[in-house]
């Protein structure tokens, strides 16, 4: 997995609460293999109005934000469906970090497995940053995972992330490799548990 230590990039504001994974990636794109790339369809339906035209007022649809790697989002970002392809779509589009005041639990876990940082900051501070970016979309934002800070010029704030996700991102750990190093403990657990809870393994039919 790609490490995440520090990122300096442009940001795109999307300060709307409850943007669930159905909005990030509509279900009909879930059939697409990863190799096809999902960046082009991120927020597909959400970006359009009722007549199917791109919503011009939405920063996501504006050239100034095209190469943004940081997304500033509203409360409860990524709730709902467990579809990891929502993370693929954000990542394939170029996003490497989402800053929001809270995230859906499954989304946050999927994000870290793919090297996408979910930084939890105070809503008022994100709103402040979003306002500054709207005034000057060309400015770059610095996200430092070691220090857990977001800064832009003289402005800065701290963010939260659970230590497990932080460790994994900083080290670029691969879960399967890590788990393999505990093979003995797993085998011992399985043997002991089979005797205590024999019903766990169903009889084959």
């Amino acid at each position: 997995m790609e490490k995440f230590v520090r990122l300096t990039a442009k940001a795109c504001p999307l300060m709307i609460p409850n943007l669930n994974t159905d909005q990030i990636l509509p279900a009909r794109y879930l059939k697409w293999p990863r190799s096809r790339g999902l960046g082009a369809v991120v927020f597909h339906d959400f970006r359009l109005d009722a007549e199917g035209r791109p919503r011009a007022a939405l920063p996501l649809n504006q050239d100034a934000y095209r190469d943004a790697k940081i997304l500033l989002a509203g409360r409860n970002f990524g709730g709902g469906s467990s579809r990891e392809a929502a993370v693929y779509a954000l990542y394939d589009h170029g996003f490497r970090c989402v800053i929001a005041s809270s995230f859906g639990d499954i989304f946050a876990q999927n994000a870290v497995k793919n090297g996408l940082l979910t930084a939890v900051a105070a809503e008022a501070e994100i709103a402040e940053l979003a306002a500054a970016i709207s005034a000057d979309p060309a400015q770059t934002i610095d996200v430092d995972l070691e220090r857990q800070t977001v800064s832009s010029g003289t402005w800065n704030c701290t963010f939260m992330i659970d230590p497990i996700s932080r460790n994994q991102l900083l080290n670029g750990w691969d879960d399967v490799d890590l788990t393999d190093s505990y093979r003995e403990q797993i085998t011992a657990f399985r043997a002991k548990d089979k005797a205590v809870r024999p019903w766990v393994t169903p009889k084959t039919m």
Partner: protein
Amino acid sequence: MSEPRTLIDKLWSAHEIVRRDDGAALLWVDRHYVHEGSFHAFSQMKTRGRAIAEPQLTFGVADHYVPTRGRGNDIANPEIAAMVRNFEANAAENHITLFGLRDPRQGIVHVVGPEQGLTLPGLLIVCGDSHTSTHGAFGAYAFGIGASEVAHVLMTQTLWQKRPKRMRIVVDGTTAPGIASKDIALATIAHIGADGAQGHAIEFAGRAIRALTMEGRMTLCNMSIEAGGRCGVVAPDTTTFAYLNARPYVPKGADFDRAIEAWSKLASDDDAVFDREVTLDASTIVPIVTWGTTPDDALPVDARAPDPSRETDSTRANYVREALDYMGIAPGTKLTDIAVDRVFIGSCTNARIEDLRAAAAVLAGRVSKVPGLVSPGSSTIKRQAEDEGLDRIFRDAGLEWADSGCSMCVGINGDLVPSGERCASTTNRNFRGRQGPGARTHLMSPAMVAAAAVSGHLADVRPLLAGRKL
């Protein structure tokens, strides 16, 4: 004396293999359900050149992409046909027991697992689907995971997790006639918010929960994720054991007795401390419908839609305005004045036999004013409903009686609500576009969907139940 522990703590400890310094625990997975959507994970495993660790603990169910009509024929849509075929190939290659498209036990994974007796108390259950929380109804620790985690479970039968906070939702008192588990779920979500249980595992407790059938408990635990909780659990009891008795994969005879002895200990200790406690009074719960685009936009059916001009918070006012605009509802409209275009009875939330009976009790001898689709939770339930004559009631009312699958809850098999149409639905998510681009969804109980069908608009089911056997 040892410290009093919650049920959540007990379930967690029983599966913890190791814990790292940063708090991450490696958990043993007892049961892994996979479906057509799990293809990313199978490819990840293949790319790494790895084999499945425990095929006998892994079960496949075809539900997300399967058609609900014309089961005898080949699947017309080539992309969907490829998804189903690919899944069958992955299951065969990895020696996974499959409840596939042609299997008489096929259905929705969260209905089939419990129905076949694969879901048992005390198990740690995962599946690449957020509604895996359903299985918590049995006192199992069950939660949804993403594709990378599915791949990890396939390869190792374990999972790295952060211990969640513990929340207890106590629903005391007795619900009034005509009030369903779905109403309890929506009332709870409206009370704590769509992200109210984020970071928490929920234990549901109290007299009203104990009084629920297993079907009712499954509906409630299913909706935990709509309150932001990855996992919801109910302590197993005699209702649980009676449901499990004699199901195909449940241990038999002395093995069953031994298991029940162990399962009976799965309860929170009297003085166990929760990180958060929420209490609701069941007697105050009335039939509930959603008006907006998240499940916490839920109100009693006799209420009016909100009015953004009356909201004091500007973010909230904006949200309400946009949600009402998407839903095509004028501010302050009486909810019972909202006309519906179609109805859907189905999904892992509300398509079990009890749900079909509740809807049929309202529909019997009446005609639906709008078209609608009924997709039973499993093929087994479909046969049972037909034996009971419920299919006749649905058909006579003018509704379509279809095969089992995720169907119009998520629409990936092509069962869609057309853009701009309004659907009264027994499903779990009223998100924008959930039932199809531009579709407008109102969530409610099966009986309330039936009430909307015969009325042609959102309606209180209670007057329609007068003099009927429930």
